[in-house]
């Protein structure tokens, strides 16, 4: 006996097996990302009111690059449309166009991931410097004309390490001042103020990592998990576009369904980002 309804729908449910499977899986993914969003809300609601980094546990605002985030959103939305157009192309029996759209989808995915890595790298080289007079300064640290960064998560540049390296002054490209909503205060020059700070005045310094604040912890976790889903989805779609496309010859109906199922996953990944972007970047 063969397993029935692998590509023909079962009459009473109107669905083929893989479609039932993927929607069940997506239901569980809703719970997964839902739990992460719940955690974000809980942590944020219980943060004390105030301005970060002056108040160490106040919720930071405006730290994420909005133009980049917006562009990434557009990239993902584009990939969502191209994957459904790929499926439509197959329904219209146009394999060549299907492949073109799939390639665009996968390229959008990798563009998204590339931009995300750029964002992560920017965070890892972005420092918060706490001074002895109680103030805190944030920005990139310039060393030999480049942005300094560390590699080991707990090997943050603590003050002792600076002394070991015989550094007595650091140059900080200070971030523009922001208001309580995270909007930049002065819309004047785009040049960053560079401030020289004596190491002797520094209490601690560390870059933006999950350890720095629960905001970063949630941000990195939720975007990394989302990114893993983007990567996984892209690999599956790439597989369908090339080696897996053999099935178009042997069983076109089942192949179309596979693309539909892969597309459903892809749209879900886009859906998560549609909520992630405003919640984490804008609110």
């Amino acid at each position, binding site marked *: 006996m*063969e397993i*029935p*309804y*692998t*590509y*023909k729908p*079962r*009459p009473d*449910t*109107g*669905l083929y097996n893989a*479609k*039932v499977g993927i*929607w*069940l899986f997506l*239901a*569980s993914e*809703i*719970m997964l990302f*839902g*739990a992460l*969003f*719940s955690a974000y*809300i*809980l942590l944020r*609601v*219980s*943060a*004390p009111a105030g301005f970060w980094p002056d108040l160490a*546990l106040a919720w930071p605002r405006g730290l994420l690059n*909005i133009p980049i985030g*917006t562009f990434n*959103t*557009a990239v993902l*939305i*584009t990939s*969502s*449309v191209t994957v*459904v*157009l790929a499926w*439509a192309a197959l*329904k*219209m*029996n146009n394999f060549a166009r299907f492949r073109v759209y799939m390639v665009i989808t996968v390229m959008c995915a990798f563009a998204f991931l590339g931009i995300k890595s750029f964002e992560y790298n920017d965070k890892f080289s972005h420092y918060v410097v706490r001074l002895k007079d109680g103030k805190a300064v944030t920005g990139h640290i310039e060393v030999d004309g480049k942005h300094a960064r560390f590699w080991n998560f707990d090997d943050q540049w603590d003050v002792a390490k600076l002394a070991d390296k015989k550094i007595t002054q650091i140059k900080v490209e200070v971030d523009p001042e922001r208001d309580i*909503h995270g*909007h930049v205060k002065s819309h004047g020059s785009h040049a960053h103020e560079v401030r020289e700070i004596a190491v002797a005045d520094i209490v601690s310094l560390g870059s933006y990592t999950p350890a720095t604040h629960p905001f970063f912890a949630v941000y990195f976790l939720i975007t990394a998990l989302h990114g893993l889903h983007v990567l996984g989805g892209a690999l599956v779609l790439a597989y369908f576009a090339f080696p897996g496309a053999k099935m178009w010859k042997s069983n076109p*109906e089942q192949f*179309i369904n596979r693309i539909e199922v892969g*597309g*459903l996953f892809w*749209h879900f990944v*886009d*859906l998560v980002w*549609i*909520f992630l*972007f*405003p*919640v984490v970047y*804008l*609110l």
Partner: protein
Amino acid sequence: MSQHNSSHAASHGGDDHDHDIAAHVRTYLIIFGALLVGTVLTVAMYYVDFSSMALTVAVALFIASIKAFLVAGYFMHLLSEKKLVYGVLVLSAIFFVALMGLTLWGSNDLPKNSSTKTLYVP
């Protein structure tokens, strides 16, 4: 070999189906445009100073929900999907709301005579 699989080949292929799909493609492109507009709107709202945080959140989530509805309804074909799928999604929506709502409620509902403002000192 597969007796269960009905031989309703008519539902796939054929000229009238091509028309169907062509109309769908137009719809997808329109929705794509709507989503891009929605994204611009989302970012634009960021620069509007709303009177309260609650309103800011409500507006942001409202726009996001519209975009989500478009992706789910049209790209994922949910608007024309079968009851079973709706059922599964409604279930997960209920439990997601329960998780978020009850957790938040549990962290904010404190004993009457409690001196702490939150359940833990942040």
